[in-house]
């Protein structure tokens, strides 16, 4: 499972300056993805998973956003040091993004064909004819029937699942080495979600691209990712290969999250274990472990000092002072 490094994000900190103060959205996140690897970033709303990837893509408006620190090495080139012009050649061509809501991500007044063709004309310098032919191929590749006709339609004529397919076709237009998928199936029904996941798996295997799949759904990730990063309140709290996360979750948050999840494949044997309280207010500068107020195992040190992510088992890192198996400090 060793991959050559493709993207390496180091100590990323993103903040937003708003009227109420400073929002500490991402607080020192490091992420690595290898060539052809599938990484999942899991967390609840407001945990900073989308902001992290948007920062890497340099899609955060500044101001109000601020990049307080960090480095994003894409094939050893720091994306944060590129000019906007150079960045435009990376975006869409070398790394592409698929968003949660395909309706707002697509332009409602342009035909789908025009929008896919635009990527091809800008990045690959194709002419009208070539880009049309390639768009037909792409649309067929993502499983949209009757591609010629569908290309001349507008996004509102597509169903949710078809729109997401069109978005994926668009992101694949330049055969990127990295696809960032930001909750691409959250707005879809389960049967359509299953279609999209199968499609992405097939394309990944055919094209050999790396994927960062951002989601709040631990179920979706299980059959898709090789490695999982769990985020909470702007920090990565656990990182491991996929089997480890589900079989031996070591961070109390991941542990609690899995316990809070009902299972379709099992008979009910108990009430759901709920996590008390709510995620922290991001307007307060982080102090101590962000999960401490909701954690069953928290002790004094957790409230004072924020643990760093460290390797505690093969392919398994956590940021926690406690050993969940004994419930005592490590």
């Amino acid at each position: 499972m060793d991959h050559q490094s493709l993207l390496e994000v180091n100590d990323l900190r993103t903040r937003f300056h708003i009227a109420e103060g400073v929002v500490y959205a991402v607080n020192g996140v490091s992420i690595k993805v290898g060539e052809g690897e599938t990484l999942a970033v899991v967390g609840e709303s407001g945990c900073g998973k989308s902001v992290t990837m948007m920062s890497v893509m340099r899609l955060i408006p500044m101001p109000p956003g601020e990049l307080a620190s960090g480095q994003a090495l894409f094939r050893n080139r720091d994306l944060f040091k590129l000019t906007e012009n150079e960045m435009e050649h990376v975006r869409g061509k070398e790394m592409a993004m698929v968003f949660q809501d395909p309706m707002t991500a697509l332009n409602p007044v342009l035909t789908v064909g025009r929008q896919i063709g635009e990527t091809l004309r800008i990045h690959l310098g194709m002419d009208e004819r070539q880009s049309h032919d390639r768009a037909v191929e792409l649309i067929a590749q993502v499983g949209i029937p009757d591609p010629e006709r569908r290309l001349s339609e507008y996004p509102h004529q597509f169903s949710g699942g078809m729109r997401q397919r069109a978005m994926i076709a668009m992101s694949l237009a330049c055969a990127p080495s990295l696809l960032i998928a930001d909750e691409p199936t959250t707005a879809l029904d389960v049967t359509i979600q299953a279609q999209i996941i199968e499609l992405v798996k097939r394309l990944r295997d055919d094209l050999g691209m790396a994927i960062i799949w951002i989601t709040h759904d631990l179920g979706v990730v299980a059959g898709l990712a090789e490695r999982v990063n769990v985020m909470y309140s702007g920090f990565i709290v656990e990182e491991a290969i996929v089997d480890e996360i589900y079989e031996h979750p070591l961070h109390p948050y991941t542990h609690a999250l899995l316990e809070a999840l009902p299972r379709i494949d099992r008979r009910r044997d108990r009430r759901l274990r709920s996590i008390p309280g709510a995620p922290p207010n991001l307007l307060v500068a982080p102090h101590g472990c962000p999960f401490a107020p909701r954690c069953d195992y928290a002790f004094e040190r957790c409230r004072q000092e924020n643990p760093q992510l460290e390797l505690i088992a093969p392919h398994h890192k956590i940021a926690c002072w406690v050993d969940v198996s004994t419930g005592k400090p490590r």
Partner: protein
Amino acid sequence: MTPANETSTSIANNDYLVQVNQLVKHFPVLQGLVIERQVGSVKAVDGISFNITRGETLGMVGESGCGKTTAGRTMLGLYPITSGSVKISGIEVNKADRQQLLTIRRKAQMIFQDPYGSLNPRWTISGIIGEPIRVHRLLKSNKERNERVHELMLLVGLSPRLINRFPHEFSGGQRQRIGIARALASEPEFIVCDEPISALDVSIQAQVVNLLEDLQDQFGLTYLFIAHDLSMVRHICDRVAVMYLGGIVELAERNELYENPLHPYTVALLSAVPIPDPKKDRIRQRIILSGDVPSPINPPSGCHFHPRCPLAAKVCSEAPPVWREAAPNHWVACHVI
């Protein structure tokens, strides 16, 4: 603590609180700017029948557009019924007079999906939770009403100190608690929960689900739990109805339905749900349905599912399947199985 354990349901007794018989709800499709004429109808709910026993939780699942929300709303009289009947606590909803309708509105409540859109942003929590008490004239004085709102807030796990705050000051999970407190204010027997947890984060979902279960134990409530999260439905519901394009295709006790699904649609739907267990997920046989759900304006002939069905035979496109009891308490509408 009945619903907390596996052995809870006995559907044998006939103490039905809710009886739905051949319920149909069509919405007209109009065309023309000045003179509108009806050119068709959206067959949102097309003849569904089921009963809900007192104290039971019936789950209703299906994909978006299958009519599950419309079914719930029509049952409470929020939409006029096209045909068929709904009886709640012995009162027939579509034939109820003013007084009876008021009784139904008090005894049957609803919790909505969107915790943002379902609370009036200009009202304080006290006003929102106190509204049903005022409307139904359950308590006379302001003081009594305030005390009751206090009590309700404690019941759903909100601090009564927040009584004069506005909805925007609360998180999604807290707002859903406010919606639950409002539903409880009129002391209902039956609550339609329309995707009450879909908009919430996983860690908050469990809180709300546990709260709903506690309240059910405490007050003997009966729930219709409408959801698309099939894992949560297995957890919380006693029996589950699967809807497809306006009709119920299968209805059974939860473990029977999840372990022994009969209808090809149920089988496909269940196989599409991801399992948070990588080893299991990898070896799982998935049935990927092709295409989308067809339009409920012109549903396919015969069995509505036949164009996407892996088992479809000739008869499936010709005649609608009969609703029959294939195994004890396991109902299904399918020609093939």
